Structures are given as structure tokens and as C-alpha cells.
């Protein structure tokens, strides 16, 4: 199954959210018009390496991560510094076609994530445009609740003070409009934060205990409908 699209419409926060959710291993390729293609190596949903290549097929020549590092002349002990040096260029990209190839690369078992992806998601969420935040937080009546594991995730995300205040106001009852009132923060800041929280998995949509059915539907009638549909 594919994970592919256009960065202008599906940004890094959205992509990282999908890769983080199932802790995916694989390679994210960003193809640009100028032949400056970037390969981002993911292990368990976290970025472990970034490299630039002129031709995309170069990326798929090596299935062993240690061979990739050897070819690039990078020692394992330098990985953090290399990553920190290359991240700004990657994160500044706003255009290009992306595609993620799941699996494919074999990582050494001792390779650990060096920068939590949750921290990068929140960093990027702080810069989202008004148009972008509307994609996720399109309604001031939305209600969110904290996820069971929110404290651990929030630690990895290195929340800043106003984000902690917003998190405190999320209780499964307050609407987005209420959170804006409670925190006295501007709407864009609150929406950016909620966007990041959703992508990291700090919060989720409120799980509704009751749902409205706009018709006096009896179980007998429902069974009739089910039988009818089955028989079509």
C-alpha cells in the first residue's frame, strides 16, 4: 500500500503522524524538480538519517543501513551531528512529491532514535499557516481528550509553556472555542498546538458515548433494513 502525495498539500506534520502511528521502518523520498532528491530513513517512526541523492534509484541500491553509512563516509558516532546539520534543509521544504517505501532497509538493532519525532512535529506545528491549521482544526466546536499515554508523549515533544497551558485545558469537554477563552491565547496559536498534539498522539477526538439517530428506529425495523440490504 502506498503512502505518497504532494508536500504542498500533505505537509511533514501529516506525513510524520502517519509514520509515527504504526512506528514504521522505511525510507521517505522527497523528489524535487531540480534533481535534489532527499531520502529520509525512518526506524520505528523516527528519523535516523537524511541523505541527498541526484537519482532516486541510488537510494534503493543498498538494503543495509551500515553500507549506506559506509558509502556516505559517516561513522555511527557522528549520526547525531549529521542529522542536526541536515534537518533544517529537510524541514524547510514546502514542495516536492513524497513517497514512503515501507521496510526495505535493514537497520542494526542497536540503532536508537536520536531526535524524537514528536519534538519535530511540534516544532513544525508552531509554523503552520492559517490555511494549514484549518485542515485539521476546522471547527471551533470540536472536542478533544488526552490519550492514555499523553504524559510520555508530551515529554518527548518538549512542549513550551503555552502548549502546556493548552494541554491542561483539554479535558474531553472543552471545545476549541473554550480552550481559546481559557488560555487567552490567539486562535492560530491554539489551533497550531492542537494540530501538533493530534499528530503526535497527545490528544485524540473525544470518543462519543452517545450518538444521535434522527429517526425513531426500532431494532425490528433495523433488522428489516439489514435483511433488505443483504438481499440486494
Amino acid at each position: 500500500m502506498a503512502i505518497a502525495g504532494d508536500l504542498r498539500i500533505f505537509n511533514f506534520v501529516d506525513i510524520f503522524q502517519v509514520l509515527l502511528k504504526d512506528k514504521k521502518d522505511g525510507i521517505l523520498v522527497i523528489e524535487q524538480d531540480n534533481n535534489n532528491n532527499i531520502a529520509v530513513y525512518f526506524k520505528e517512526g523516527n528519523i535516523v538519517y537524511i541523505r541527498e541523492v541526484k537519482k532516486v534509484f541510488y537510494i534503493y541500491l543498498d538494503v543495509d543501513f551500515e553500507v549506506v553509512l559506509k558509502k556516505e563516509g559517516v561513522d555511527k558516532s557522528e549520526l547525531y551531528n549529521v542529522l542536526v546539520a541536515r534537518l533544517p534543509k529537510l524541514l524547510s521544504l514546502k514542495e516536492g512529491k513524497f513517497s514512503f517505501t515501507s521496510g526495505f532497509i535493514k537497520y542494526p538493532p542497536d540503532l536508537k532514535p536520536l531526535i524524537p519525532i514528536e519534538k519535530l512535529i511540534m516544532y513544525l506545528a508552531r509554523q503552520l499557516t492559517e490555511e494549514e491549521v484549518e485542515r485539521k482544526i476546522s471547527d471551533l466546536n470540536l472536542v478533544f481528550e488526552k490519550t492514555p499515554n499523553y504524559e510520555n508523549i508530551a515529554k518527548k515533544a518538549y512542549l513550551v509553556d503555552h502548549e502546556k497551558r493548552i494541554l491542561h485545558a483539554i479535558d474531553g469537554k472543552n471545545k476549541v472555542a473554550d480552550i481559546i477563552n481559557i488560555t487567552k491565547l490567539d486562535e492560530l496559536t491554539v489551533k497550531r498546538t492542537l494540530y501538533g498534539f493530534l499528530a503526535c498522539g497527545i490528544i485524540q477526538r473525544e470518543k462519543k458515548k452517545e450518538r444521535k439517530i434522527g429517526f425513531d428506529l426500532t431494532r425490528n425495523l433495523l433488522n428489516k433494513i439489514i435483511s433488505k440490504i443483504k438481499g440486494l
Partner: protein
Amino acid sequence: MTEKKIKIVVAGPYAAGKTQFINTISEIETVKTEARTTKPGEKEKKDHTTVAMDFGRIKIDDEHTLYLFGTPGQSRFDFMWDILGKGMVGLVVLVDSTDPATFHEARRIINFFEARYPAPFVVGANKQDLKGAWSPEDIRTALDLGEEIKVIPLVATDKENVKRVLLELLEEISKYI
């Protein structure tokens, strides 16, 4: 005897396959309110688009008829969501699994209905037969949906697929009556 109308709404982004979904299952030819597409970005995808609503019909018994109402996909017609949301028993949100650009619009539709008409709903991940289709699980994550919401793979031209989506929705509805 006065006919009692039971309403299921089929919503989703532009070109997600809503009209096809209704066509595939309806007992009557789907009543369409279409206009020729003229906007850039839309006319490349299809010639005509729904501007008010489509509906299909399935007669349940002498008294009851199930109506499937398809909403227009473009957000400029979102006033129709309000009209159609009132009195619905359930909602099917269709997405084009091959086009992540439409996931944002699908999320916006879900946000709208969840905030105003929180009826039972399922998501249909359409066009699963096409190259480049995202998996239902990845679509669930992209739409910020929890495990409790069913995201069902389908091809809207396949009657059995459409029946499955409706039956899953009816199962969801049964939890609340």
C-alpha cells in the same frame, strides 16, 4: 399509507465516488443534480459534479423507504451538509484512497458532522483497486480517527463492497438503539 423516510447521508470530498456509491446500490436510477464542472482542478477530474444532492432509494416495506443522500463534495456547497445532516440515521464518509489531497476535506466533513450531527458513521476508503491507494489504516491515522471508527476498504462500483459498507454502518447504528 404515508411513506416514512429513513435517511443515510453519503458525504465526502470532490470526486470521492459518492454518486457512484449510491448508483451501485439504489433500486431506482439515482436522481442527480449535476452541473458541468468549470473550475480549474475540478474539470480535469470529471465533466459533471453534484451541486445540490443526489439521492437513491431502497424500499424496505410498505411503510418505510431508505434514502441515500449524496452531498456535493466541494466546500462551497457546505450549506447542503447542514440541510442533509438533520434527521439522518447514519453517515458514510467516502475518501479517494489514491488522493491524499482530499483527506483534509474528508476530515473537515467529519469535523462538521461530529460537531453538529453526531450520528453513527463509517469511512469508506474508495478506489482501493487503483495503484497508489493508501491503506485503510493509514487513512484512519491521516483523518485523526480512533480505532472505534470503522474505515472500510471498497471499490464503489462493486455492489458487494457497497453493501458491506452499509451493513457496517447499520451495525454501528444498532449500538445506539
